[in-house]
């Protein structure tokens, strides 16, 4: 038996699927747009008032509304880690966090790591020193995740680092150098 071809999700298929919905569902009134909600997001120590549709994720709020494009959109489905930021010091995925739900929490992005004098965070410096990237697309997410990894106490060995960094994919496969950078940054972070 030939399996049905796996189609493109989303746009291309939506029309066909809608047509197939049972009447009860199709008869629902068209969804209402909801007015923008006003939030104050605390990012990198600064308060940012923003008016957003409830659907806006933290990742889109950062990138499209606040010009903080450091966090990257790789998959938008929680699978790649490119959008990793810290929320109250814990690493989370900005693409699966609603901006509205992030209100009242302290958010740190890659833009907030360097000191006021421009001095790099030890993890940023270690990624430079160990050549821990190629194209650089995954790098902001890797660095934010690596900081979380050290702070959680899950950077005790190269195996430990590999396991606890597995949520950050690198299409260029810079993995060995990323592990080396984290091992090097760990004592620097503990000193600082």
């Amino acid at each position, binding site marked *: *038996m030939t399996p049905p071809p796996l189609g493109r999700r*989303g746009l291309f298929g939506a029309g*066909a699927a809608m047509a197939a919905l049972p009447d009860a569902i199709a008869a629902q009134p068209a969804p209402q747009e909801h007015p923008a909600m006003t939030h104050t997001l605390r990012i990198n120590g600064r308060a940012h008032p923003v008016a957003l549709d409830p659907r806006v994720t933290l990742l889109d709020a950062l990138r499209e509304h606040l010009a903080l494009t450091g966090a990257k959109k790789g998959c938008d489905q929680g699978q790649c880690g490119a959008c990793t930021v810290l929320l109250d010091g814990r690493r989370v995925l900005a693409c699966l966090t609603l901006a509205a739900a992030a209100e009242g929490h302290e958010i740190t992005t890659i833009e907030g790591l360097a000191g006021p004098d421009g001095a790099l965070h030890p993890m940023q410096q270690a990624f430079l020193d160990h050549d821990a990237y190629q194209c650089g697309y995954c790098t902001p997410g890797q660095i934010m995740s690596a900081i*979380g990894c050290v702070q959680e106490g899950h950077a005790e060995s190269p195996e430990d680092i*590999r396991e606890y960094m597995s*949520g950050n994919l690198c299409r260029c496969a810079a993995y060995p150098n990323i592990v080396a950078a984290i091992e090097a940054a760990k004592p620097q972070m503990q000193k600082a």
Partner: protein
Amino acid sequence: MRPFAYERVPDPAAAQRAVPVGSSSAAAPVPTMVLAGGTTLLDLMKLDVLRPERLLDIRPLESRLGAIRLDGQGLRLGALARMAQVADDVEVRREFPVLAESLALAASAQLRNMATLGGNVLQRTRCSYYRDVSYAACNKRNPGSGCAALDGYNRLHAVLGTSEHCIASYPGDFAQALMALDAVVEIEGPQGGRSMPFAELHRAPGDRPDIETTLRPGELITAFQVPAGPWAKRSRYVKVRDRQSYAFAAASAAVALDLDGDRVRGVRIALGGVATRPWRATDAEAALAGQRLDEASAMRAAEVAFRDARTHGENDDKPELGRRTLVRALLEAQRMEIA
């Protein structure tokens, strides 16, 4: 994503008043759904599989429903405790290792920092036809439409508890650990509080794959109770997957063993990745009771566990994978050094 209203829940009573649907009907555009970590819900809303018109963010209840408490009776885990919090808890790791292991081996560090225990047990299948609305035929998403997986890509689909209407596997890990330890789930709803064995929370698909749990409209999971017992410390979660980390189980086994020397006084087994719901292998448990535990007796029990397996082509290897996973889990649990 379709438009929705977002609200934060001020207190649990408000949550019950306002939640008309827990999680049972996956496809119907339910007016309101509760948002915990959002790692299942937002993902499936972006894919247009789930279509709530209103989200109630229950994370503000974390202060009341996020605690881990251990006493002589056992362990009580609040439904809003985060996966990482429980996976890293020193006492849980020592007293109930299977719980911590099942969580530590699930998803990624970021997801475990976001996701809650209540949301975790209610996560939806990863069946690619369920997740892709361009397929009309999916009884779980679109009741009565058929099942594209029966003759389609079904390598990761279930072999136990299937029906002619749905063969999607239950994807989570933690549920198997709860089931092996005879956990109880605490629920609050419009009619007040109730509790039931965790084993009764999920449904097999039967002819209604869209109804996945026995939760009633408006009900909220508030906690899991895990009784203390001689088997809890000697408990283990083994997960086999396509890559070494950050992947759903191709097969998994949660086992808890009470040994008298090399004889099995009692054993509890739950299987993951192979069944349509968290799956307790009671017949396999009975086959091992009173036996000397070794590779041969473990294999006999594993044969029993998969006696009724039904495969669908691409997943013909599942029963053997499942058997070997269970044997490994039993033998690893036997070798654990218990303080």
